[in-house]
Each structure stands twice: as C-alpha cells, then as structure tokens.
C-alpha cells in the first residue's frame, strides 16, 4: 500500500490496480449501507421537523396518535442513530479498513448483504412499533426488546471481517493512526450495546439506576462508536487529500488512548443531584470534563496538520465536509463539558442543551465527516463522478446552517431554561411559563431541521443517481470550484 516517490512506474500501476480491486471487493455491501442509510437519514430529518413542529404547536395534526410528540421524537432519534448512523459508519469502517489494511474482502459478501437487509427490516419494524405506541420508553433504546439481539448479530457480521482485515494487514509506519479508531469502534459498540440491553431488559428492579445506565449508554455510543468513526475518517482523509502527513504520531496515539480510557466513564452526570449514588454522577462529571483532553489532542493535531493548507477546503467536497466535521468535534467536547461540570451542569440539567450535545456530536461531527467520506468513496465504487457541484454545495451549506442553528439555539435555550428555573426571583412563575419562554428556540429548531431535510433530499437524490451508475462519465473529479486545467491538483 505504501507508495514512496521513488517507486517505479510499474509498481505504481500495480498499486493502483490493487486498490481498484479492493474497492471492487467491498462495493456491494458499502453501497448498500450508504444508500439505505441515506434513506433513513431522510426519514429521520423529516420526523425531526414534525417533532419540532409538535413542540411549538401541539394541536398540529391533532387526533393522529401516531405522530404525537412522545412517539415522533424517539422515532426521529432511532432512525438517526440506527438507521443512518450505524449503517453509514459500518460502510465507512469497512472501506477504510480494507484500504488501510490492503486486504480485499475475500468471502462472505452475501452474508454482509443479508445482515444489512436484516438490520434494515429490524429497524423498520422497530420504528413502526415506536410510532404505534409500543416503545420501551428507554431513551435511544425505544425499539421493542426483541430487536436488540438481531441488531447485535447483524453488527457482528460486519465487525468480524473488519477486525479480520486488521489482523491480516501488513502494518507500515503510521498504519494505526486511523485504523485503531475503526478497530476500536468494532469492539466497543457490541460491548456497550450488550451491556446496556442486558442491564435494562434482563436485570429486574433496577429502579433509578436504570435511568443512569441509559444515560451512560447514550454517551458511550456517541463517544466510543460515533466519535471514533468520525475521528478515523478525519485522520484518513485530511492527509489523503491535502497530501500533508499527520503532524504528530505521538499526539494521535495519546488522543486515541485517552478517548479509549475515558469514553466509557461518562453519562450518569445527567442525573447529578438525583437518586443515584453520588460518586457515579461525580465520576461522570469529572470524565465529561476530562474528555476535553482527547478532543483537544485530536483538534491540535488536525490544526497542526492543516495549518496553512486550507485552500483545498474550497475545492474538495470531501475535505470540506471532513474539515467542518472536525471543527464540530471540539464544539461537541465543549458542550459535553458544560453539561457535565457541576457549576454549569446544575443550570443545564434536563434542558435542551443535552439535545444540543446529541445533535452536535451525532450530526455536526459524525455525520458531516461521514458525508465527506461518502463523497470520496462512492465515485471509486460506482465508477462514475458526482453529477452536480450545485447539489454538493447546497447539501453542505444547508447542513452547516441547519446544524449550527440547532446546536446554538438548543444551547442558548438550555441556558435560559436552566437560569430561569433556578432563579429565586421566579418563585411565583409556574412551569408552563418557562416552557412558553423556550418557544422561539423550538421554532428555530423546526426551521433548522427543515433546512437539513432539504439538504438531505439533495444528498439522497445525488447518491441514488451515483449508485445506479448515472454519474458523470469522466476521469476528472467533481470539484466545488473547477480549475480550467482538468489535470490541475486533484483533491477529490
């Protein structure tokens, strides 16, 4: 895999052919995951708009029980997490690991497709069950109990070949920088998923601790699954496209291990001051703040890598998405630290700022990075180039504005809600007044989800055209600002 400038012409050719063969071997499962993921993303954002509208105008489409807020919001988040998030992550993980390890996907392609089909059927049934009122009422695990063993097996069907590729790889220097995140995600998700589901569904009489375990599950899935995949993407694509090596192998190593050690300790601070043993929330709060260290190390490394090389962001769609995803990573770390620390958390507890964290980490950071990866991977798999610069550009800007609006508005709304509730001057205000005060923020949330839905519609159409092979027939990449010379720096 490693090519150095002095490699002879024939070696380069052989290397190109090898990479093309790897791409071909993972084509079917990866495109399957991306396409289905994009459909779920579309659905999820539409449900997000409806849920936000229901918050502002509870009488909207009154009398239809399937779209009451209590069913819409879980359906929206579950479609986002399991429909889009995990599927897109698995696709990216499979492709990056295959490329980094230099291994073709030798066998078991039909098993992967079967697992993918079962994953999608299970989620469809699960989300329909949520909309019909059969939710388990456990946040992020609302789909009925029978779904989780199926989802787990399907996930393992993907995790196994990815881990095996890693095991067989010849590991040149710097091999680990992106791959250890991918490998970590393969192992961490099953661990978190089994722990949370067994604890919540199989252990009797958990009481308040159940809520704490659920909060831990949400944070662990974000920090030990979605974040590693996003960081892995950034570490792979930023040097690949800028042609600039990662600045510091030591920082990369430290960033990975601090995340690996700290990621599974946080979450329970959601119930600070609640009926959980105090040390559990204290550890969660301390870790929530400490997680700024891996976030800072990765951010610093990206900063040092990209220093002075930002021009490619203007042309390459991949780099632009990955770059903005990487910018949202420190933001998500700061939001988590503010929610976690007791000083700020006492105000932000149980407010919209927790939604802000979920959206910024899952959408702003993870999904933006994965969009970038998809813009890079799909042309290599489908054999054609992205059709339209305008579609990509719109997808990017509508996403950026939408996510930023949700994150900032939810954060400010959370701050205001918390400050109002804790203010002794408001002793004579009833709770409903606080709810009404946050209405403008929820309106902006509905508008933002509408913007994001629009951007996803364009993304979905574009991706479908690529998958059925209707992309541009050209040997030049689709760049956001075209150079007159077609053979100019190729950033795509």
């Amino acid at each position, binding site marked *: *895999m*490693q090519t*150095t400038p002095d490699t002879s012409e024939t070696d380069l050719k052989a290397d*190109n052919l090898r*990479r*093309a063969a790897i*791409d071909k071997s993972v*084509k*079917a499962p990866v*495109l399957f995951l991306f396409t289905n993921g994009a459909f779920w993303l579309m659905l999820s954002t539409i449900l997000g708009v409806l849920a936000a509208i229901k918050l502002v105008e509870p009488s909207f489409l009154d009398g239809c029980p399937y779209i009451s807020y209590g069913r819409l919001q879980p359906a929206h988040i579950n479609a986002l997490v399991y429909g889009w998030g995990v599927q897109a992550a698995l696709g990216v993980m499979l492709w990056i690991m295959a490329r*980094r390890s230099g291994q073709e996907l030798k066998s078991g392609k039909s098993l992967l497709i079967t697992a993918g089909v079962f994953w999608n059927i299970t989620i469809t049934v699960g989300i329909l069950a949520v909309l019909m009122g059969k939710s388990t009422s456990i946040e992020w695990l609302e789909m009925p109990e029978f779904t989780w063993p199926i989802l787990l097996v399907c996930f393992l069907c993907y995790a196994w070949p990815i881990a095996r590729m890693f095991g067989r790889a010849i590991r*040149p*220097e*710097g091999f680990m*920088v992106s791959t250890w995140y991918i490998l970590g995600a393969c192992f961490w998700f099953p661990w978190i998923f089994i722990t949370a589901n067994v604890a919540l569904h199989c252990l009797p009489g958990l009481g308040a601790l159940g809520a704490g375990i659920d909060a831990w599950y949400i944070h662990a899935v974000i920090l030990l699954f979605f974040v590693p995949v996003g960081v892995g993407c950034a570490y792979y694509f930023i*040097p*690949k496209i800028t*042609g*600039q*090596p*990662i*600045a*510091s*192998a*030591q*920082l990369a190593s430290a960033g990975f291990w601090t995340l690996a050690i700290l990621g599974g300790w946080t979450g329970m601070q959601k119930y600070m*001051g609640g009926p*959980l*043993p*105090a*040390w559990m*929330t*204290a*550890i969660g*709060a*301390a870790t929530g*703040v*400490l997680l*700024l*260290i891996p976030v*800072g*190390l990765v951010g*610093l490394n990206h900063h*040092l890598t990209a220093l002075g090389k930002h021009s490619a962001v203007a042309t390459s769609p991949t780099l632009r998405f990955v770059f903005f995803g990487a910018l949202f990573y420190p933001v998500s770390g700061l939001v988590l*630290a503010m929610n*976690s*620390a*007791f000083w700020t958390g006492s105000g932000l507890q149980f407010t919209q700022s927790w939604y802000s964290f979920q959206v910024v980490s899952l959408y702003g950071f993870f999904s933006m990075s994965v969009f970038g990866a998809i813009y890079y991977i799909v*042309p*290599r798999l489908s*054999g054609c*180039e992205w059709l339209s610069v305008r579609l990509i550009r719109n997808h990017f800007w509508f996403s950026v504005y939408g996510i930023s609006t949700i994150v900032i508005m939810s954060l400010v709304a959370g701050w205001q809600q918390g400050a109002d509730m804790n203010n002794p001057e408001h002793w*004579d205000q009833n709770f409903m007044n606080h709810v009404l005060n946050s209405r403008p923020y929820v309106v902006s949330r509905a508008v933002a989800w509408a913007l994001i839905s629009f951007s996803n519609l364009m993304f979905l159409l574009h991706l479908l055209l690529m*998958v059925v*092979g209707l992309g541009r*027939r*050209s*040997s*030049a*990449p689709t760049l956001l600002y075209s150079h007159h010379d077609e053979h100019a720096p190729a950033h795509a």
Partner: protein
Amino acid sequence: MSANAHPDSTDLDRIHSAVKREKADLPPESQPAPLWATFLLMLVAIVAGGQLGPMAGGWSFDVSNPFSIAAGGMDPRPGADGAGATLDPFALAMKKGASGYAICGGCHQGNGAGLPGQFPPLAGSEWVTGGTERLIRVVQHGLVGAITVKGQGYNTPGGMQPFGAAMSSQDLANVLTYIRNTWGNEGTMITKEMVQKVRDEEKRATQWTEAELQPFADKNVEGEIPAGPGATAAAAAK
C-alpha cells in the same frame, strides 16, 4: 450493479482514474506539541478533578446527595441544611429569614428604612416590634390605604400585596422573626405554629386597612417561643 453493466466498462483508464489520481498514504510526522497546549490540558484536568472530592459523597453506595455525607457530616455549602442543624431555632430563623427578606427588600429597602411617603420603614416601626398578631395578618393578607408609621403618613397605590398564599408558614415565620430582630429591632420570635394559627382563624381574600387591624395592634399570638428574646421556659427546656 457490477461494473460490467456499464456499456463503457472496458475503458479501464476511466474506471481506474479515481484510484490513479489518489495521493499516497503518508506516515505521520513527529512535530512537537506546543507548550501552551500542555498547560491548557492540565487546566482541564484540574477543573475535572474539582468534580470529585466532596461531590463524590464519600464514595458510598448509600449516599445520593453529595452534600450530606453518610457519617452525619455537614453540608459544606454555606447556609445549607446541614449547617442549620447546629444552630438554635432563633439563630436558624434569623439566618433563613435574612435570605427570605430579599423579596421584602424590594420595597422596604435592604436597610429596612422604606421610602418616604411610599413604603413604610420596618426599622424601629411599632407595627413590626408591636403585637405579633397584627404583623402576621399584614403579611398574610396584605394591607391597603393610608397608614401611619412612626408618626409619618404612607399611602402606596394598591397597598401591600398578600404574601400568605405563596409562602409556607415556616418561611413567613422566619422572615418575620428576622425583621423583628434586625436594624436595632428587638422582639419575640414568631414561630411556624403562630403563623399557622392565624391562617386557620382568618381566611379573608381582601387586604386589611389600618382601622380594621387596630384591635390587633398590641395582641400577641399565643404559642411557645422556643428561643431568642422572651423565650418561654417550657420551650427552652425542649
């Protein structure tokens, strides 16, 4: 959807163009991290450490409120519940009443001097230090119309609002004890039971006037005075 399905899939050059134009995977460098980053991360660790310590509640499975440590320790926050346990009832009422007075201070001012013509003073006021029955009734039900305090006339449009409905009898008792013993005032403690007694006797929905309250001017509500000035012996023994 195999690549062979494309009519021009024999065009190997085009098919492979994407992999051809890729840049090589580069090994990472070893640039040094700037020193300020190290200090910043240390700061993060210090802030994170602040979440542990007393917040961890002694690392016990039985403690969910980090501020009351299992072994009967005290709440480390100033003015919190744990601190009150060691104070006598009068000192506790004074302490809590002082924070409750924040609401009264908006009109009667922090120094209890009121505003001439509008809000009567509490410091040295015969309404405050006099009979407890009249004082409780004023705060419980409100007061409207012209009144005379310390020889000066006051008349606020709308008068004083009733606070009884919004405050517990304990809170009300604390605030009244506080104003009766601050700014040079000295008076007996008003207890929760006294406030409750007045509440049970009088259920009016309108504000009092000065004339209506005249019969209560020097009347004290009966009840034990556990501590403070004029404490009754029976209660002191308790």
